């Protein structure tokens, strides 16, 4: 016995009503997907700086105390600073002997402010003698793709994404707002670690650090320092893989995921409310139809299955159209906003698609309340005619 009511009859014959719901679901999908994409552009763009670069490069700033230097032991600040430089250079030499460390040197850095869609991140740019730069580039697997290598003071090789991000051309001054006309871009480099490097010019800098060129086997510089007799404390700066990993999680991922959760929640509450009202209205308009089905021998469960199939088709169309248009929108956004600014983000984000679909399923779950209530209230036609 054929006992299934077709879900297509209603959808085919009520294109305006069902189309409105599909369009609403599509728009929600697009809004959620593209919002996720914008927020995750920040996460994914800084991921290279905070998770990849530290695998090959660490920055250390050791305090006087960690070296056992006390101001009282020196006649003047100059003497103290001389002693500090000596200890630091000694430490750099010791670090060079550690297996897994290719090079270590005490040098100036400047900071590039990498602008993302949401927020910004400071990225260290080491300054060194022009003669040391080729070795640094080799370690960082970087290649000069445009311009020339630095030869004089205050010249910068900038990563190609930083060039886009800062809207720089060769010959422009690097971070002019912060450093004035001090560092001139002489070339563009490409590297999986998105690094930039330059030569110093006077004392204009972002601080002095021991730059450690290392391989991926070394993740915990605190342990390495401990091994050579330096006990670091909170006053020391040890920017290694572990520190960056933690910073990435707490300062970037957790914050942006929190924002994303709030966005999802607000959109879903709004959507659930809207769809709930729309569905209650649909079902009220169809009471006589359901009564007819009951009267001519369809069971309540057959009517329920028809409503559920209708809902699945509408949500399915909404999700499919939403996904297709989101990818198209994503391609446009990627080329106009993300790639053009030297940022990065995946076009297809399976976990976000999963969250959106899970939200849709959640709304379908909420809709069970009015549906089950209405189905149970359906009577046969004799009750209407009384």
């Amino acid at each position, binding site marked *: 016995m054929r006992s299934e009511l077709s879900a297509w009859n209603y959808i085919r*014959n009520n294109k305006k009503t069902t189309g409105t719901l599909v369009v609403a679901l599509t728009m929600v999908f697009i809004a959620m997907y593209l919002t996720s994409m914008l927020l995750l552009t920040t996460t994914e763009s800084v991921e290279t700086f905070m998770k990849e670069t530290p695998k090959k490069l660490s920055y250390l700033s050791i305090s006087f105390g960690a070296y056992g230097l006390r101001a009282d032991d020196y006649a003047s600040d100059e003497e103290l600073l001389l002693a500090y430089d000596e200890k630091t250079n000694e430490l750099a030499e010791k670090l060079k002997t550690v297996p897994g460390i290719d090079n270590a040197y005490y040098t100036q850095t400047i900071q590039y402010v990498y602008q993302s869609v949401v927020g910004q991140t400071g990225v260290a740019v080491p300054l060194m003698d022009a003669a040391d730069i080729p070795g640094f580039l080799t370690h960082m697997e970087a290649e000069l793709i445009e311009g020339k290598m630095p030869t004089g003071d205050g010249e910068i090789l900038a990563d190609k994404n930083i060039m886009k991000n800062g809207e720089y051309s060769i010959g422009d001054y690097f971070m002019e707002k912060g450093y004035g006309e001090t560092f001139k871009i002489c070339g563009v480099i490409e590297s999986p670690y998105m690094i930039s490097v330059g030569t110093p010019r006077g004392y204009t800098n972002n601080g002095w650090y021991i730059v450690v060129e290392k391989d991926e086997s070394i993740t915990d510089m605190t342990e390495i320092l401990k091994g050579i007799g330096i006990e670091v404390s909170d006053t020391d700066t040890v920017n290694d893989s572990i520190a960056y990993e933690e910073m990435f999680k707490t300062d970037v991922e957790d914050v942006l995921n929190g924002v994303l959760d709030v966005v999802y929640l607000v959109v879903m509450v709004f959507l659930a409310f809207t769809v709930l009202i729309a569905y209650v209205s649909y079902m009220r308009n169809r009471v006589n139809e359901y009564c007819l*089905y009951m*009267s001519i021998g369809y069971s309540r469960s057959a009517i329920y299955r028809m409503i559920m199939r209708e809902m699945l088709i509408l949500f399915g169309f909404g999700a499919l159209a939403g996904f297709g248009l989101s990818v198209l929108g994503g391609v446009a956004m990627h080329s106009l906003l993300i790639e053009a600014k030297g940022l990065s983000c995946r076009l297809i984000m399976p976990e976000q698609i999963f969250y959106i679909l899970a939200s849709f399923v959640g709304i379908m779950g909420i809709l069970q309340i009015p549906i089950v209530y209405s189905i149970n209230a359906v009577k046969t036609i004799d009750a209407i005619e009384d």
Partner: protein
Amino acid sequence: MFEVKKISMIYDMEKEEKLYALKGFDLSLPDKGLIGIIGPSGSGKSTLMYCLSTLRKPTDGSIIYNGSELTEASNAERERLRRMDFGFVFQKHYLVPYMSAVNNVMVAGVGKEQQIREKAEKILKELGIKEREFSKKPAKLSGGQCQRIAIARAVINDPKVIFADEPTASLDHENAFNVMKILKEYSKDRLVLVVTHDKSILKDSDRIIEMWDGQINMQDGELE
């Protein structure tokens, strides 16, 4: 086909003064023929039809249909009877407003879609609905056409019994006459029960049951 014993139906059971819609009478109905049930409003004629068609359960008594006790039938069995054995024509046509004429007939059909469609179109043609009307929705059809589509929906599964509750109430005289002609034709080898308070439409009926105050006042009565 139907053997009704001491059937009674009480509304407002919880009230002190109970309202008897059916007051414990017996009735026997044959396998075929056009049978009219007449009576004034509140006489219990519609309640009797609803009980026979399993839409309602009587308060007391027994309804035997083809040897089976309907009052003890499960919900699934009652639904099966309404799908397969019984056809319904209501006072209003209750066509689904967004469906075409042919889909309104098909919605009650049991079987493969293509076969149901062919059958629905054949019945509609037999009932005088032109092919160009098949795709029209109820709002674009006349009252008479809608009631004929409702009849087509009622007969799509070749039911053994058709229950027609005031099938001509919303029709003009000519359309009422045509609808009764169709039902009379169907009653040649099936049972058609027509509930009405309009005696004039029952002139071709094989039997008339007159009801009054929840009881059968007269059976096999001749029309005046």
